[in-house]
C-alpha cells in the first residue's frame, strides 16, 4: 500500500470515525449535563425559532461593534468563506463528496479556487499574526489556538502545493494533503475547531434564553 492509498483509505477512514465519535462525545457530554427549567414568565418566544434566529443573526456584527472589530471580522469572514469555497466548491472535492454521499453540485473553476485558497491562507496568517501580537489575544490564547490554526492551514497549504507540484510529486502531495485533512478531522471535535458544531449550541442557547426575555440578542 503506497502513501496515497494509505491516506485516502485507512487514514481517512480512521479520521472520519474519530470525527463522528468525538463530535457526538462532546455534544452529548454537554447536552446531558442537564439544565434547570426556567420558570420565569416569558416575554417572547424562546423555542427552536429563537435558537435559529440567533444562529443566523449572530453571524453578523451589530452596528456599535463594527468599527472596533472590523479587521478581525473581515479576516474571519475571508477565512470562513474561503474555507467553505475551497472545501465545497473545488471540483475534485465535489467529486469526493459525490463518491461518498452520491450528491453533487456545481463547482468553481480551479483557478478561482486557487485564488480563494491563497486569500484564505493570507487571512489565516493575518489572524495568527494578530493573535501573536495583540496583548488581549496573547493573554487569552493557549496551545489549542495555535494548534487548531496549524491543522486548519495545513490542508490549505498542502492543497495549494498540488497544482504547482512543489516539493513533492503529485501523488505524494495529494497523499500529504489528504493526511493533513485527516489530522484536521481528528483534531476538530476536541479543540476549539469544535465551534463548527458548538456554534449552534452557544448561539442557540443564547437565542432561547434572551429571546424568551425579549432582550437583545
Amino acid at each position, binding site marked *: 500500500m503506497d502513501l496515497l492509498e494509505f491516506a485516502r483509505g485507512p487514514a481517512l477512514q480512521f479520521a472520519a470515525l474519530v470525527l463522528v465519535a468525538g463530535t457526538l462525545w462532546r455534544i452529548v*457530554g454537554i447536552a446531558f449535563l442537564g439544565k434547570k427549567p*426556567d420558570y420565569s414568565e416569558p416575554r417572547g418566544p424562546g423555542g427552536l425559532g429563537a435558537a435559529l434566529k440567533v444562529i443566523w443573526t449572530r453571524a453578523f456584527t451589530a452596528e456599535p461593534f463594527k468599527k472596533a472589530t472590523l479587521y478581525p471580522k473581515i479576516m474571519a469572514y475571508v477565512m470562513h468563506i474561503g474555507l467553505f469555497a475551497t472545501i465545497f466548491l473545488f471540483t475534485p472535492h465535489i467529486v469526493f463528496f459525490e463518491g461518498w454521499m452520491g450528491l453533487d453540485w456545481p463547482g468553481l473553476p480551479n483557478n478561482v479556487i486557487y485564488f480563494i485558497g491563497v486569500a484564505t491562507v493570507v487571512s489565516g496568517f493575518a489572524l495568527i499574526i494578530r493573535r501573536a501580537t495583540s496583548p488581549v489575544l496573547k493573554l487569552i490564547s493557549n496551545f489549542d489556538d495555535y494548534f487548531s490554526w496549524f491543522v486548519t492551514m495545513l490542508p490549505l497549504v498542502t492543497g495549494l502545493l498540488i497544482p504547482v507540484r512543489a516539493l513533492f510529486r503529485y501523488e505524494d502531495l495529494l497523499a500529504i494533503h489528504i493526511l493533513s485533512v485527516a489530522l484536521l478531522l481528528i483534531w476538530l471535535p476536541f479543540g476549539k475547531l469544535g465551534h463548527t458544531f458548538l456554534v449552534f449550541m452557544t448561539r442557540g442557547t*443564547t437565542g432561547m434564553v434572551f429571546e424568551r426575555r425579549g432582550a*437583545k440578542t
Partner: protein
Amino acid sequence: MTTVDGRHTIDREAERIAYKPPEVRHDKQGDMSTEERVEMAMRHFVKNFNTQTASYLDGCLHCGMCADACHYHVRTDDPRYTPIWKIELFKQAYKREVGPFAFFYRLFGFKKKVTVEQLEEWQHLLYDSCTVCGRCSLVCPMGIDIAGMVSMARHGMFKAGLIPHELHETAKKAAETGSPLGVTPEKFEERLEWMADEHEVDIPLNVEKADVLAVMSSIEIQKYPESMAATAKILNAAGESWTFRTDGYEATNFGMLSGNVEWQKEASMKLIDTAIKIGAKRLVLPECGHAYMAMRWMGANMYGKPLPFTVQHISEYLAEALNEGRIKVRKVDKSVTYHDPCQVSRRGGATQAARDVLKHLGVDFREMPNGGDYNWCCGGGGGVVTIKRADELRHRVFKLKMDQVESTEADELLSSCANCRQSFDDSQQHFNWSYKMGSLLETVAENLEEGKA
C-alpha cells in the same frame, strides 16, 4: 484570618450611599485554610456547570472581541479586562472538572487546579472591573453570555471568602437586617410617613389584600425618598388597589451581586411570600436594575415554580398605564436623553418601556449614539459602586458614558435605576459634570395630570 465585624458607619454625605472607606481592608473572609478556599471555590463553580454554561465554556474561540465591548478594556487597554479572561478560572474549573474531556484534562494536567493566589488575583477582575452589564455578550460571535457567567463565578468566590470587603459587608448587612443599608421596617415606615406628609400623598402600608405590591430599594428609601412618593402618586392616580409592606419591601439583592445564592434566595423569597400573602396580581419593582434581573428573571427559579403574579419594572408599569390611558401626563417641552439600565434594557428586555413613557411625555427624545441595548454602563452596576478601591477605575470608565450623553446635547438626562443614579451622582461630583441624572419615575409623577382619566 480575620472575620470582619460588619460594623461600619454609613456615609450619608457621599454622593452615593455606602459605607465609609474601611480603615483596614478585609478582602478575605472567614477562617479557612488555603486548600479549603480552593475547594469551596471549585464546588461552587461546579454547581453552575449545566448544558448552557458548558456549551458557552466549551465554545469560546479566544477571538478577544469581547474586549472591544467592555468599558474597562476600552478605557484602559489592559488585556486582563477582556471579559472572557475574567471567567478564566471558572472556565479552567469547568474543563478540569465537568467538561466532556475532563478526564483527560485531569489525567495529563492540561488544566491545572485553580490556586488561591489566582482566586485572589481574580477578585479584582470578577468584582472591581465587571458590572455584569452584558455588553460583551452581544459582541461575542459565538453568542456566549459572558456576563451571566461572571455572576456564577462569584458564587465560588463568595464561598471561598474572597470578595471585596465592602461588598461583603453590604451583602451581610442585607442578609442580617433585610436591607443592605440597614433600613429596618420601622425606618421604612418612618420615611414613608415623612414622604406622605411632605407630598400630601396617601401611601397605603401593610394593606391585607391588594392587587399590586410595590417595593423599594434601600438606595431610594435612604437617598431618593421622592421615589416613594412618586410611586404612590402614580399608583393612586391609576386607581390601583396597592400597598407597600413592611414584611417585604427591599428590592435590592446583594446576595445576587456578591455571589451568595442562599442570601439571594432569602431576599427574593421575602418579596414573593409577601406578594402571595396579600394576593397580589402584580409585583411592581422600583427603579433598580439588578432588582429586575433578580425578581423578573430569577425570582420564579428561586421559588421553584412559576410565580402566581406578574413582575414589572416601574418603567414597564408606567408604559402600560400610559398606553392604556389609566394615567395621563402633561407634555414636557424639553430635550431628553435616556440612559438604559443594563439589567432592565439590554439584559432584561424592557428597553421599549422607557421610550413609550418618554413618548407620552412628549419630550424631544434624543437617543444616545449606540444607545438602547448597546448602551455603555454607568460603571456602578454589579455591586461595583460599593467597592471603594474600584473608584478610580470606575471614574475612568465613566468617561465613555459622559461622551455618550454629551453627544446628544439634550437638556436632561433621565434613567430608571437608583443604582445608576448614585453612580451618576458620584461621578457627576467627581468630574463636576454638567449633567445630573433624573428619574423617569419622578418625572412622570411631577407631570401627572391629576384626576383619573
